[in-house]
């Protein structure tokens, strides 16, 4: 991964968010405030726009700046949480202009771990992390075969998101109606699944 492929990947994720904007709004309206689709679409669009123009080659500095752009354009709680992810990745890639698939996967794992630490959440609490964590685990596990890794990661993230239906919410506004949240798909986890879908689409397109 370098600054160019990073820009391509974020742009592919942005396409997913735009296509699913209304769906995400609908999901969030069930037990959130309905801004999920708007903030994710705006955030990734701004991040993709920033990366397309940015001259920075150091992946760490680039991703750190990208996280700030994202946060400014997506001022919701998931926007802030996503920025913790970018920041964790940025630290892991500081000083590198080029990262191997495995290095990029491990950086993404560092990003997800940073989210879990800073937002004080773990797998099984009906959040974004329920899709992200299995997705990034698959990326790391199959890093020897990038094409297989991105496909498996997308599938693992989608399955992780689907599993949130059976979970009880412990965070955010959804937790106010924790019992009622059972049976409902978590919108944040759908965002997580779309991130890996975007990454897989990007990698498929490059082959």
């Amino acid at each position: 991964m370098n600054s160019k492929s990073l820009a391509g990947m974020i742009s592919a994720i942005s396409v997913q968010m735009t296509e699913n904007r209304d769906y995400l709004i609908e999901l969030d309206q069930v037990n959130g405030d309905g801004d999920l689709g708007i903030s994710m679409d705006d955030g990734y669009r701004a991040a993709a726009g920033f990366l397309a123009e940015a001259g920075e080659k150091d992946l760490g500095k680039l991703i750190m700046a990208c996280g700030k752009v994202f946060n400014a354009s997506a001022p919701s709680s998931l926007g802030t949480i996503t920025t913790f992810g970018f920041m964790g990745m940025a630290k892991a890639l500081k000083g590198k202009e080029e990262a191997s698939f495995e290095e990029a996967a491990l950086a993404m794992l560092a990003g997800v771990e940073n989210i879990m630490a800073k937002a004080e959440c773990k797998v099984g609490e009906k959040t974004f992390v329920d899709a992200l964590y299995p997705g990034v685990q698959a990326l790391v596990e199959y890093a020897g075969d990038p094409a297989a890794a991105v496909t498996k990661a997308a599938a693992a993230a989608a399955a992780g998101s689907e599993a949130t239906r059976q979970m009880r919410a412990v965070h955010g506004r959804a937790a106010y109606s924790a019992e009622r949240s059972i049976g409902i798909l978590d919108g944040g986890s759908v965002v997580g699944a779309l991130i890996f879908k975007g990454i897989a689409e990007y990698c498929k397109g490059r082959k």
Partner: protein
Amino acid sequence: MKKIINSADSFVQDTMEGIICAYGDKVKLLNDDFRVLLSDYPAKAGKVGIVTAGGSGHLPVFLGYVGSGMLDGCAVGDVFASPASDKMVDMIRACDRGSGVLCLYGNYNGDKFNFRMACEEVEFDDIETETVLVRDDVASSPKENADKRRGVAGMVYAFKIAGAAADKMLNLQEVAAVTAKALDNIRSMGVALSPCIVPKAGKPTFSIAEDEIEVGMGIHGEAGIEVRKMMTADEIAETLVTTILKDLPLVSGDEVSVMVNGLGATPMEEQLIVYRKVYQILADRGVKIVMPHIGEYATSMEMAGLSVTIFKLDGELKELLQAPAQTPFYTNANK
């Protein structure tokens, strides 16, 4: 709503301009940004920076403690709202003298998220930070969940200890450790008689009957432990001290500092009547009071009520408490 303001929207900026008009020779804005206040007192080269941040509406908390021997900087939010993380980033950078920065603030989600993000960002540029959270309000969560407690007036003591430790040229980890030790020995609890009005909201934060008192209320009007019929000053002092001592046991011979803090609309006379009883209860137990603090230290605009804070001292903490400190809003020279 009856308030002496120009408009709800200009409330914070107008306040900050007032501070600069009055005390511009002691404190300054960072690059003319009214969201970041920095100390302009002389400070030792290479000392650890001490910073905080929080919403407006609590003066002298938070920015009133920016000065000599306390805070180096404070980021300022809207009334009862955290400032944005990029303001904290600017502040931390401005307060780093190469030895790192202690971020010392109340346990509120908005402040926590934004500060964590700011620390991530400056650490990326190799500025070292440590975080210590203030969680002194015993009424906000039971002892088993003490990590969920809110930060209230006890943070003033924490600012004092951290500032004095930094002035002694302790390193960042040492400053953080002694500040955390101080907070382990600081407990507060308050009562409220009337609500306050957030300018932009324009209506009271809660309602309470004329003959009632809310026991254990937070400084943003968060619900307390119970609503009771109005009590006498002595009964209030007993209720607060008894609850605090369950959490922070004291024995004969212990030394403490005590703060009786007015929430904004309670007269000094009433604060002193409560202090009198707190003094008697502690004296009966053989506990000695060092440097009592009576006055308005952490307010909630025009809320009526007060809080009591007890800070149990050891030799090190007593020395740090007594070290000189001066800000536009605070001095310990008269205590």
